[in-house]
């Protein structure tokens, strides 16, 4: 089974219908384990219980960038390989990514209030993630503004690839600028700076959130395919009405003109 085999939407629908229940079950299981472990994790000696926000915040922040990465690959699929499902994937991912980004910002500011003494600070990491959020919203607006999906897909693909420049800026903003947001501690040279009691629940949560994204993404892609089918069926029906009116003679002439104008 390669990517090309999935180009047939019917085959894709059949495959995802079989996979989705398992994915959803795995997501629920891992989320439960992760949350349980996170609840059991000891309090930090400086941060107290607020350290537990991290178990939600960090996976959301990772996912906010990961989803844009997925959309960039899908955009390459649209522009370079013309894969028929690539634009469906890109369109379905945008609202999910926006939700993850919003949750990352929200949990971050809830954590920042007791720790930094402020909900919001214009530091490089926060600002660049906010820009990412705005770009997600802009992309969703672009998808909604154009009625022809394939035309919107190519425009959105160009914009997604340009916006992908923001990803390294977000990743390295904490290293390039000396900011309020702490630098990377999990993935860095010389091993993780996190204690095992924090690291394991965090990794479980990260995998759980990734699975959550894959589940939601596949479900959203199914919905998008079905929505497009409904749309094309409606179009066919409308044109059939117009056509039958046309051969109905002079009586139907006005009606068909109206449909054509609409």
């Amino acid at each position, binding site marked *: 089974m390669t990517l090309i085999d999935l180009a047939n939407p019917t085959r894709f629908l059949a495959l995802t219908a079989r996979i989705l229940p398992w994915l959803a079950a795995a997501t629920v299981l891992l989320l439960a384990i992760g949350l349980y472990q996170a609840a059991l994790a000891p309090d930090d000696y400086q941060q107290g219980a607020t350290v537990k926000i991290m178990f939600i915040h960090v996976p959301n922040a990772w996912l906010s960038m990961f989803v844009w990465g997925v959309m960039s690959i899908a955009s390459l699929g649209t*522009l370079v390989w013309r894969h028929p499902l690539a634009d469906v994937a890109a369109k379905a991912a945008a609202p999910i990514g926006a939700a993850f980004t919003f949750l990352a910002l929200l949990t971050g500011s809830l954590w920042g209030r007791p720790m930094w003494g402020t909900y919001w600070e214009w530091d490089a990491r926060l*600002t660049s993630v906010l*820009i990412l959020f*705005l*770009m997600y*919203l*802009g*992309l969703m*607006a*672009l998808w909604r*503004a*154009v009625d022809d999906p394939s*035309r*919107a897909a*190519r*425009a959105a*693909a*160009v*914009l997604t*690839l*340009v*916006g992908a*420049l923001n990803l390294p*800026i977000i990743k390295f903003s904490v290293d390039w600028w000396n900011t309020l947001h702490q630098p990377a501690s999990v993935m860095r040279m010389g091993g993780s700076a996190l204690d095992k009691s924090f690291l394991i629940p965090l990794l479980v949560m990260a995998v759980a959130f990734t699975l959550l994204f894959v589940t939601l993404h596949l479900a959203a892609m199914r919905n998008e395919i079905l929505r497009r089918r409904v749309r094309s069926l409606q179009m066919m029906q409308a044109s059939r009405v117009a056509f039958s009116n046309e051969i109905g003679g002079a009586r139907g002439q006005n009606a068909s003109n109206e449909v054509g104008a609409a």
Partner: protein
Amino acid sequence: MTALSALIRRDIRIALRVGGGALIGVLFFLTVVVLMPFAVGPDLALLSRLGPAILWLGALLASLLTLDRLFMADHEDGSLDLITMSRTPLELACAAKALAHWLAAGLPLIVATPVLGLLLNLDMVATAAVALTLLAGTPALTFTGMIGAALAVTLHRGGLLMAVLVLPLSIPVLIFGVAASQAVIVGPMTFGAPFSILCALSLVSLVIGPFAAAASLRHGLD
């Protein structure tokens, strides 16, 4: 080469003549800057502190609003199809059009900056700093905005949607432009670091903008 210089000359000529509207950008810039004292109050000390930010915001909005029509007029009269089909690479043609737009609409903004700095109580050094950062930064605004203009012409949509798409991309330019000007006026940072990043942003957008705009024109026009 001659085709590109002909394209640049043609675009500048169209922009500066009746119906072109490049100079309306300067008028808009002036109006925005004049509006600011009404909003924040005519406190000269406050205005001189906010001056660089106001000038940068005005320049950003002015260049964004004039960019809307970069490809639209050519699309309407059919010359965009000729440019797309010609032997000159579309990327180079896009870069030439953006350069012409910057010469016709961006440079006048920088020329107007000293006059507007006078209105905002900026001293000589501060005005020079803002003008220099605008000179280094506005090409980045034009070349990233060109992507939005190309999307606008392929989608037959302009206005607010394009502003929403392009403005987030121009935030880094705004940050470093204002940071470099503020560094001269109040310190404590050095002028060099943010100014170099500003130049780097312009160069990066010079590379990426034409390719993205050409890709969107190639895939989107029908």
